[in-house]
């Protein structure tokens, strides 16, 4: 290890991942979302500072991506050109991934999945009566660039009913998965759409105790970045856990 204690990462990024602010997240036990009742641990989580393995994390290289991975309109197309485009309202979703300190999170993998324009997922377990779109798979991937920016193209997903309190309805949403650069920065969430009238009725958004936190899951209509005569744009920024600076912390040999 170099004498200055740095591990070769950028200055200011070599410390521990900051503790998770659990007030920003849903608790495990949320009986209005019935499935959580039997799947929620009842004992307190064991709190520990992250170790070397938790401050590190898997690295995904851009070379795993295929050219259409971030284009859900075309990446499951059954025909060439726009004859194979998915049905629905064409949208671009874009934004920046930052950490809690405001630093961009570059070169990190983002995975997304969603229902089609009718609210039907292409999954062996989804039997909703809305039809499958032969040209829509509903999954995509991208990496953030050197400044933490990402984008993908898709169709706006439809709302759909699900069995919870009778037939509840999910607002339109896109599932999003991020890794960051540390194992404990992992985050899976869902983005919603500005103005969706179903948002206030959703038991899953309702798992969030802080309404301001729920607001941060709403992608904003971005007319400035709409593609003329092609696609609307929505902006969705993501914040992952930050990393502490190290002050007066001598690391033992070998860490």
């Amino acid at each position, binding site marked *: 290890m170099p004498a200055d204690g740095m591990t070769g990462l950028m200055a200011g990024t070599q410390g521990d991942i*900051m503790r*998770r*602010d659990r007030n*920003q*997240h*849903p608790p*495990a036990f949320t009986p209005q*979302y019935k499935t*959580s*009742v*039997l*799947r*929620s*641990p009842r*004992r307190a*989580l*064991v*709190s*520990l*500072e992250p*170790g*070397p*393995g*938790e401050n*590190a994390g*898997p*690295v995904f290289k851009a070379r795993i991506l295929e050219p259409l991975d971030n284009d859900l309109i075309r990446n499951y197309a059954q025909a060439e050109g726009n004859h194979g485009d998915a049905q629905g309202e064409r949208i671009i979703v874009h934004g920046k991934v930052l950490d*809690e300190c*405001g630093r961009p999170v570059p070169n990190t993998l983002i*995975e997304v*999945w969603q229902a089609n324009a009718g609210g039907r997922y*292409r*999954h062996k*377990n*989804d039997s909703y009566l809305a039809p499958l779109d032969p040209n829509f*798979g*509903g*999954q995509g991937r991208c990496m953030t660039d050197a400044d933490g920016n990402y984008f993908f193209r898709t169709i706006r997903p439809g709302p759909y009913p699900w069995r919870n309190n009778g037939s509840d309805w999910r607002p339109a949403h896109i*599932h999003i*998965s991020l890794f960051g650069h540390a*194992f*404990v920065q*992992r*985050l*899976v*969430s*869902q983005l919603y759409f500005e103005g969706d009238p179903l948002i206030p009725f959703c038991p*899953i958004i309702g*798992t*969030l105790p802080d309404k301001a*936190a*729920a607001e*941060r*899951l709403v992608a904003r209509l971005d007319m400035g970045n709409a593609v003329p005569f092609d696609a609307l744009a929505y902006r969705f920024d*993501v*914040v*992952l856990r930050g990393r502490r600076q190290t002050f007066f912390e001598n690391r*033992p040999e*070998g*860490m």
Partner: protein
Amino acid sequence: MPVEYLKETPSQTGGPYVHIGTLPAFAGLAVRTQEQPHIIDGAGERIRITGLVIDGSGTPVRDALLELWQADAEGRHNAGDFSGWGRAAASSETGEWMFETVRPGVVPWRDGRPQAPHVSLLIFARGINIHLHTRMYFPEDAAALEADPVLRSVEQAGRRATLVAERTAAADMPSYRFTIHLQGDAETVFFDM
């Protein structure tokens, strides 16, 4: 006013169709059908880990997604070609999941004390609002388990056993069984690190 930081984006459940985005071939999509992210290649002793995630009624969770993260056989993360990362789906019929990987080496804890060899696991599923983080240790390492700084941080000594797998008989490679209990008397220890 204290210094302000950005607030972490809130978690939401991965939902029942988490596989579409994470293991598309498992969901039934004709996408990346050759990938086998539950098999982690690398130098070292090959091992198999199988298990179940059990809900509060004793029923296997059949829509769970697990992610594994570990050091290589020498106790290093992100060294060489070893990814250290894997992903597996619970069977839609039985809830069984499986990883094949290499036996991890010893990683020092924050204070330099050795940790017993272990893999870290994250669990995602419908009804799990924010993913659960646990560890699996190996039963042969009795002295190292006794001294492990993370196990020792679990105040109730009787709960530490929830993090230790069972060795099972298998002819081809050392195999381990790890049952994760989301609730109940045997509730697995989950971490907030």
